[in-house]
């Protein structure tokens, strides 16, 4: 196994923290992501990441904690999208697009300003590609608490959210406050992408949010199985990403490792391809029922 685990892997505190924070973020991203895919809000999820980026970069500029910036930005974006009309199916793309455009503009400005400021070299890289190897114990604790909060809140609204994702009309007839439930979900989504932006970077956190759930929902027959599978796929991708990134430091004579985010996304993609192949190979449910 020594070829797989390069020297120092097991003894390295930074690696251990990275694996822990990666685990937490992957679990939350996968569970929130299942609902995001179910609701067809991948685009909104991506836009929220860009808003979070603007928030993170802005926080960096004024000297606030990046995590607060990422999450504050995302939640503000969720509120803006709701105000513009993300709840209506037709308004959804427009609201998302408007917020996305504004966020990209702000993010570009903040990153430009941060890059010009010589004392903050590497900020841009950190924000865009994540900083999982620089996560300290205090950030790990914050991320863990936030994740617990997101999961508890999501569990609380899970059934009304599921029903309104299936059909707004059915949910309304059952007395679900569809708009309210949708807004709460958007806020949870914003917090989730804000956290994963810290870990694998703003550019690729959508991949961790959408990839594992999309793969899981392709092959799972049952919703609960889909959630569990998404979590497993997300954690595997994150851990393998951390491992490969660590190893990559030893691959090149120059000792310049590749970013974690690249490896995470690579694994996510491989998982998706495998899931698609499995999905194709399995007989479709209707055919199976027809022949039995």
């Amino acid at each position, binding site marked *: 196994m020594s070829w797989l685990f390069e020297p120092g892997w097991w003894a390295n505190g930074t690696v251990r923290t990275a694996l822990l924070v990666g685990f937490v973020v992957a679990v939350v991203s996968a569970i929130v992501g299942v609902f995001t895919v179910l609701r067809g809000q991948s685009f909104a999820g991506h836009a929220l990441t860009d808003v979070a980026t603007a928030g993170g970069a802005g926080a960096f500029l004024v000297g606030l904690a990046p995590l607060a910036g990422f999450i504050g930005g995302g939640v503000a974006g969720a509120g803006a999208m709701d105000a513009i009309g993300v709840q209506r199916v037709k308004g959804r793309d427009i609201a998302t697009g408007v917020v996305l455009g504004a966020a990209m503009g702000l993010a570009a400005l903040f990153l430009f300003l941060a890059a010009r400021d010589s004392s903050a070299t590497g900020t841009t890289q950190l924000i865009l590609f994540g900083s999982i190897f620089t996560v300290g114990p205090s950030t790990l604790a914050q991320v863990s608490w936030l994740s617990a909060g997101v999961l508890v809140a999501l569990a609380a609204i899970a059934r009304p959210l599921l029903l309104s994702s299936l059909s707004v*009309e059915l949910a309304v007839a059952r007395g679900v406050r569809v708009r309210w439930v949708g807004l709460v979900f958007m806020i949870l989504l914003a917090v989730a992408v804000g956290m994963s932006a810290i870990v694998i970077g703003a550019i690729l956190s959508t991949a961790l949010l959408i990839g594992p759930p999309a793969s899981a929902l392709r092959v799972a027959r049952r919703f609960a199985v889909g959630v569990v599978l998404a979590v497993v796929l997300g954690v595997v991708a994150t851990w393998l990403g951390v491992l490969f990134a660590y190893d990559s430091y030893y691959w090149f004579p120059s000792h310049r490792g590749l970013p974690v985010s690249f490896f995470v996304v690579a694994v996510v993609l491989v998982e998706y391809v495998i899931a698609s192949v499995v999905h194709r190979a399995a007989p479709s449910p209707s055919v199976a*029922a027809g022949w039995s």
Partner: protein
Amino acid sequence: MTSQLHEASQPLLEVRGATVNIDGRDILRDVNFSINHGEFTGLIGSNGAGKTTLFRVILGLQRQVTGSVLVHGEPITRANRSIGYVPQKVLFDPDLPIRARDLVALGADGHRYGLSRRPRALHAAVDEMLDAVDAGSFADRRVGGLSGGEQQRVLVAHALISRPELLLLDEPLANLDPGSVEEIIALLHRVSQRQRVAILLSAHEMNPLLPVMDRVVYVANGHVASGTTDEVVRPSVLSALYGHHVDVLRVHGRVLVVATALPVGPAPSDQHPEFVVE
């Protein structure tokens, strides 16, 4: 005994002087009708007549409505437990891993917050509802992959599991072939009698409903006429409703509503037994 007296004296649902005005246009004007316990009522009207709007009024979802809607003599509240609803168009993504039985279970607890464990009794109730609508054989298939008629049954089970006293069905027969139409109607009739649930079902066509319909609510021109089929489907009543003279023909056990003066132009399609000229 008291409840029977109560039931006999008071209709289950009463709509009194309901008017819906959207952007200065009266969609429905002074609508009055009532539905009694266990009755099968057809809500008949052509496209845009206001059938879906009327369902929304009954569910307490319609804005800009005046008049009153009473259930058991009390003004309706939003999300009334005693009313079940199957909307007109429900499109399920075939890729969603939601089985027919999951959707039925959500009819019982989809509005509840929290992730409590589903009681054993709920699983039993789901099976019972699926059997009641003959959906047992596809209970474990993804709901998005089912045919229109199969989905319709699952949606009925979803609406029935909360044991409503009134079931609202918005055009459940659209897009079904004639055989399936008959099957679904027979099934709904059976369910309504066994579970003693009143049914209000909207359709463009009243003929398939004639054998089971206790009463009809006929919508046209924003107005409503209601009563038994014999009371409502008469030239005098329907002419007043449409605002011009129409005839009612009864041929081979079918009812045809025809405008007396046929318009100039292409002959009316003979595929439409009910031909009405506005």
